[in-house]
């Protein structure tokens, strides 16, 4: 392994294709006479369809089909992109049908039309007559939890999806041992992923009478299963193809369009039908990030040691279960490897409301709990008159920690080093001194926040990943993986891994970027920051197998024992001296064309990961607050990550830039707003939903503390989601530092800041 490409700033394998427009996304594929599918959405948050008349719509020239709930299978299914579980108790709640008679949020899917073009489809939607019985909408979790609250899903006794929690130790006993008890409450808002490419798919029935769906999905193999379940047809009758994707952030770790798309093509005799959501639809009718309300009660000793915490959480899940309670449980699990508590009680409840369904979004419940926990830590440190960094340090767990509930063991932990590096990068001590006693209109402050995260979902979810490698005649290889490239750069790091193991240049590794359930190895998809860690191991195993086969073949050719050989720069060499024995291409040709021994070299491997590496990190932020206008500006921000070995620093930095920018929006400006009485969305577009622009984003400082985790294929751990976790609390803590005002809710919009400053008599 002397090529040494792991750890290098290798150019993305898809960079040129993407910037030249050659990379094909779902909308770039053409089928002859493709029809257009559009969806009739409920204008009411909670209503029952009393009567629906589609005759006028059907009569419109150019309309090929109109479907309502009566025309689609009545199978209830779950949409979350989780691996299937053989244990029925472990499966997601099945509460959806392809179209619905009961509207559960503004935007719910009542009917759909197929027409020859967009405009005709739009016109047809307007011609569908629906008579609704409007029900009282349930728009807050508190209302949903009331005793006589209207039921959003009438087949259940109440609006609670789950209230499963846990207790470690005995918090009540531990509170008695504590010198101080601190209590805080926090609230986060509903936000949306805002991936560049909206949800889009098209479907047709092929010559073998199978349904082919091309979709912008993070989870093609799971998608296939869910379409099968929704339609009640064998899974093998469905083929899902995933081309390049313009981002997902978890919103495409869910099955939104595909079952309906399959039903639509079946309704028109298998002709191709495309569903292409508008931004306005995508923002309400796919998934959102759960809004949480957290209550913390924490016992601390005089010397600043955390003893116990009792966490109560309400998770606003919206109208359908989707990922449901998994989000709250992920939050309650992933924070544990960070701080030492003798006892923890976690009491979450996940509740239906008549709002858009919440699902997976980057870091899966953790940004919410970390906003609350790291704000709480800051408040406690201040009340104890302790330096907030010192307070945190005193309570960090570190290497050797074994989680008492899931058995995951921390084998590498660089959190102390991350903190030290961040502190130095932002020039903490000097600035803290400088910003003491500010009285002007513009005040500056510093804040920080830490996090812990996991690599994949073990042991909660199955972590299966497949990789297949074929050696070509010229010594190059094809790599196929079931894991999906969704912009994060996984194809590139997999290519690096293969090149590293095989001793060939990266450009001799051809990664098949498209996943096709007929062809690609099985993998559950892009989520949980799992791919470099879990799929990476599958790729490494496949490459090692190829290498072994190559060297054995050379042994047969030359009588030089395989263990005396290696591959370097696409040559077979003597291991001891590096002397070239023959070019790899010569071996490859023999494997194809030797009249006696020809046997092309391939490997088809699967990795079922039963390990999980904890990653760590920290954000340091400096803000400037305009006391008069309530505007907060992030002046400097640094994210320092322990993600183990960094496979590709350039891509890793990109991940951090994107995640931090997401965190800044989460802290300061992003929230989905709904009319308080009707539940109508107020800002489901990118003008009124304040996603930060590049002008609002400061230069983002990135640093890595490279530990080596023995369970990662190259010592690496998760990095996809973690950058989005800690910016919001760090910014909140910086605002507290600048102004003395402790915010308990994000986003800290100018309006909200103004109100808090008025309360604090700053204006």
């Amino acid at each position, binding site marked *: 392994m002397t090529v040494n490409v792991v750890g290098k700033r290798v150019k993305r394998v898809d960079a040129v294709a993407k910037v030249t427009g050659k990379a094909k996304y779902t909308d770039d594929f053409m089928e002859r006479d493709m029809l257009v599918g559009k969806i009739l959405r409920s204008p009411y948050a909670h209503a029952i369809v009393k009567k629906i008349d589609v005759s006028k719509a059907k009569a419109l020239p150019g309309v090929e089909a109109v479907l309502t709930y009566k025309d689609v299978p009545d199978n209830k299914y779950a949409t979350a992109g989780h691996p299937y579980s053989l244990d029925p108790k472990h499966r997601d709640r099945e509460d959806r049908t392809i179209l619905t008679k009961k509207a559960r949020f503004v935007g719910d899917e009542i009917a759909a039309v197929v027409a020859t073009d967009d405009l005709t489809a739009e016109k047809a939607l307007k011609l569908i007559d629906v008579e609704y019985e409007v029900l009282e909408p349930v728009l807050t979790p508190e209302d949903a939890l009331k005793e006589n609250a209207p039921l959003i899903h009438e087949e259940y006794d109440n609006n609670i999806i789950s209230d499963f929690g846990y207790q470690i130790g005995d918090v009540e006993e531990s509170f008695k041992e504590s010198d101080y008890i601190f209590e805080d409450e926090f609230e986060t808002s509903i936000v949306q992923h805002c991936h560049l490419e909206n949800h889009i798919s098209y479907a047709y029935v092929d010559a073998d009478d199978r349904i082919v769906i091309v979709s912008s999905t993070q989870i093609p193999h799971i998608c296939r299963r869910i379409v099968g379940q929704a339609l009640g047809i064998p899974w093998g009758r469905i083929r899902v193809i995933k081309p390049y994707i313009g981002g997902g952030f978890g919103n495409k770790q869910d099955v939104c369009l595909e079952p309906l798309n399959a039903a639509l093509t079946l309704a028109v005799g298998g002709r191709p039908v495309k569903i292409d959501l508008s931004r306005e639809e995508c923002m309400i009718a796919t998934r959102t990030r759960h809004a949480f309300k957290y209550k913390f009660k924490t016992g601390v000793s005089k010397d600043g040691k955390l003893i116990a915490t009792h966490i109560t959480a309400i998770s606003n899940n919206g109208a359908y279960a989707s990922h449901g309670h998994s989000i709250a449980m992920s939050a309650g699990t992933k924070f544990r490897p960070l701080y030492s508590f003798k006892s923890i009680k976690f009491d979450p409840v996940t509740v239906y409301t008549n709002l858009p369904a919440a699902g997976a979004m980057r870091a899966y419940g953790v940004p919410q709990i970390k906003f609350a926990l790291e704000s709480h830590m800051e408040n406690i440190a201040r009340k104890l008159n302790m330096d907030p960094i010192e307070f945190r340090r005193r309570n960090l767990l570190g290497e050797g920690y074994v989680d008492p509930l899931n058995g995951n063991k921390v084998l590498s932990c660089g959190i102390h080093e991350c903190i030290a590096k961040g502190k130095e990068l932002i020039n903490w001590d000097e600035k803290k001194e400088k910003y003491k006693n500010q009285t002007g209109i513009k005040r500056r402050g510093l804040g920080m926040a830490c996090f812990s995260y996991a690599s994949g979902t073990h042991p909660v979810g199955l972590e299966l990943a497949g990789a297949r490698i074929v050696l070509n005649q010229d010594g190059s290889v094809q790599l196929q993986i079931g894991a999906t490239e969704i912009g994060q750069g996984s194809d590139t790091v997999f290519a690096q891994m293969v090149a590293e193991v095989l001793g060939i240049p990266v450009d001799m590794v051809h990664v098949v970027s498209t996943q096709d359930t007929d062809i690609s190895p099985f993998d559950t998809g892009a989520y949980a920051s799992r791919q470099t860690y879990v799929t990476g191991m599958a790729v490494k195993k496949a490459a090692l197998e190829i290498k072994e086969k190559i060297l054995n073949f050379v042994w047969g050719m030359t009588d030089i024992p395989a263990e005396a050989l290696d591959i370097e720069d696409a040559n077979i060499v003597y291991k001891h001296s590096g002397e070239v024995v023959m070019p790899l291409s010569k071996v490859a040709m023999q494997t194809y064309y030797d009249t006696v021994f020809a046997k092309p070299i391939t490997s088809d491997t699967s990795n079922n990961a039963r390990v999980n590496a904890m990653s760590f990190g920290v954000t340091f932020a400096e803000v400037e607050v305009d006391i008069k206008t309530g505007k907060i500006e992030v002046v400097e921000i640094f994210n320092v990550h322990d993600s183990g070995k960094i496979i590709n620093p350039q891509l890793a930095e990109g991940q951090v830039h994107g995640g931090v920018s997401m965190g800044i929006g989460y802290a300061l400006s992003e929230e989905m707003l709904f009319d308080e009485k009707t539940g109508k969305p107020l*800002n489901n*577009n990118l003008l*009124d939903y304040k996603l930060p622009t*590049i002008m*609002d984003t400061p230069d983002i400082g990135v640093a890595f503390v490279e530990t080596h985790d023995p369970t990662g294929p190259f010592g690496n751990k998760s990095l996809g989601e973690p950058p989005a976790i800690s910016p919001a609390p760090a910014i909140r803590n910086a605002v507290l530092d600048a102004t003395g005002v402790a915010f308990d809710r994000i986003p800290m919009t100018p309006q909200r800041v103004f*109100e808090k400053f008025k309360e604090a008599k700053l204006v």
Partner: protein
Amino acid sequence: MYNVDQYFEPETIDEATALLAEHPNLLIIAGGTDVLIKMHSGKIAQADLLSIRKIKFLETIQKRQDGTLSIGSLATFTQIANDPIIKENIPVLKEAALSMGGPQIRNVATIGGNICNGATSADSASTLFALNAKLKLQTQGGERVIPIEDFYLGPGKVDLKPGEILTEIVISPEDYQDYGGHYIKFSMRKAMDIATLGVSAICRIKNGVFEDVRIGLGVAGPTPLRCQEAESFAKGKTVSAQTLAEIGKLAVKSTKARTSWRASKEYREHLVEELSQRALKVAIKNAGGESLA
């Protein structure tokens, strides 16, 4: 989807006014950054369009012999931001133009469209209010010139009569010469955003005294507006922090802010008081006055 049945693209203003006279239902489209968004969202369900984009002379920005500035209604925001005449004579309009949308939007959005759209948040409007701009409206039969303040009738409503096309925005020399100005767009984002409040302040100063102050506000009422009370108070007053504070307070009196999900009335009024002073502070400097702390 854009439900357009008819689309006309005349090359002269005479052709355009004739078409308008013939088809009174035609909706005028220039850059399309408002019209197409309204069609996309369904606010306009169907429209027949008259594009004026090919009438090239409407893009002209010029300074006449007598000092009058004339800005063609089809001048894009990019053009305004880069135009040497604007830069030299009314740089405050350049500031406003640059605050609008993002580069792609500014490349196509026109100043005439910005005004005719009738939004109180139009980034060019508060500055044109402060500059006492006049609008030239042309029909097949003739033309009329009216002050911009009279053009705005209500939210999204302007006095564009059937058959009329806004062709030119005119600013008289006495309204801009020797003035310094500054525009503040207060919005959640630094680009691609709609103003929570727009403040354009211009002033003329002699010997430390305000000879004239004009403040135009956007999103402080259903239409852009001027702060008459504050302006009359300011005239003849010494340039000082106290004068500014009083101007800020009086500016609020001209506003008709309301509470919406975007911002509360109280907050908007607070911003008017604060930002009119901030804008004026910079305007004072640009007018050659002593800067205030």
